[in-house]
């Protein structure tokens, strides 16, 4: 890789140091034993069946369609609930306004009644005076 003699010597030393090593005795047998163990394990079978389930294109598309439909339906439902809530809020504000108006009218009427029932200093009921005023 390099024409520099020092670099070449370093590379040679690294190649020598990093030569492939002997694997521990019985390595391949231990790997094969683990492979056999994994294939025999019930959990492995379960995993394989699940992965097999999702590896079928039709089922994969069906699962995808179900999830998509659920998301769309959920979104519509959420928006409907939001709309109902907004309408309820508007109705509540209208009711409050009506109650405030009714309350003020009631106060006005009460004041008028009090005014009528209040005795005059000359002994005449105030209604006559009010009539004469009008």
């Amino acid at each position: 890789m390099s024409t520099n003699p020092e670099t070449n010597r370093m590379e040679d030393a690294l190649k020598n140091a990093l030569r492939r090593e002997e694997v521990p005795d019985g390595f391949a047998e231990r790997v094969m034993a683990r492979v056999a163990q994994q294939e025999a394990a019930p959990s492995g079978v379960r995993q394989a069946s699940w992965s097999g389930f999702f590896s079928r294109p039709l089922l994969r598309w069906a699962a995808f369609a179900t999830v998509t439909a659920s998301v769309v339906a959920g979104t519509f439902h959420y928006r409907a609930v939001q709309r109902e809530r907004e309408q309820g809020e508007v109705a509540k504000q209208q009711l409050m306004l009506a109650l405030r108006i009714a309350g003020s009218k009631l106060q006005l009427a009460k004041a008028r009644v009090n005014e009528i029932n209040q005795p005059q200093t000359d002994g005449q009921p105030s209604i006559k005076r009010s009539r004469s005023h009008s």
Partner: protein
Amino acid sequence: MPERHADHPRETAATDFADIVRRYQAMVFSIAQHFLADRSEAEELAQDVFLQLHAALSTLKSEEHVRFWLRKVTAHRCIDHQRRRKLPQVGLDEAPEPIARAQASDPFLAKRLRQYVASLPEKPRLVVILRYQEDMMPEDIAEVLAMPLATVKSHLQRSLAMLREKVTRTMGEVAI
């Protein structure tokens, strides 16, 4: 891999898989051993790689593909393993005083170099191992490690300079 396996990988018998294991066990084990500097951990990691290969064998189309896959998965597993545990780093202070000039084939120098390689940061360490153990070209290393070619070359240059400095400091003016 024999040609009959390439067409029908699913039908690969256990004995054929054992042949694949024997063919590549030194490569996988040595990458892990040089990276981890621990034989028992390297064996465990190498076994896991072959178990994963057994599960993925049907997706591999050729001998070249199997070798590429093994190098890639071993490299990634090495990095994952490294991140789960902290490797003891070899400090320069632990190294012995300078001795006689060393040769490239000196077993003492080789042992020191292996220690220094094992103390490199994880990505440069893998690059050095794939370059000098597997004799891979930087372009191939970049593909296996999914890394830009310029980064691979930079890792190689910096690692070589770092290793040379460490060797020089600990072993004196060596002949490398």
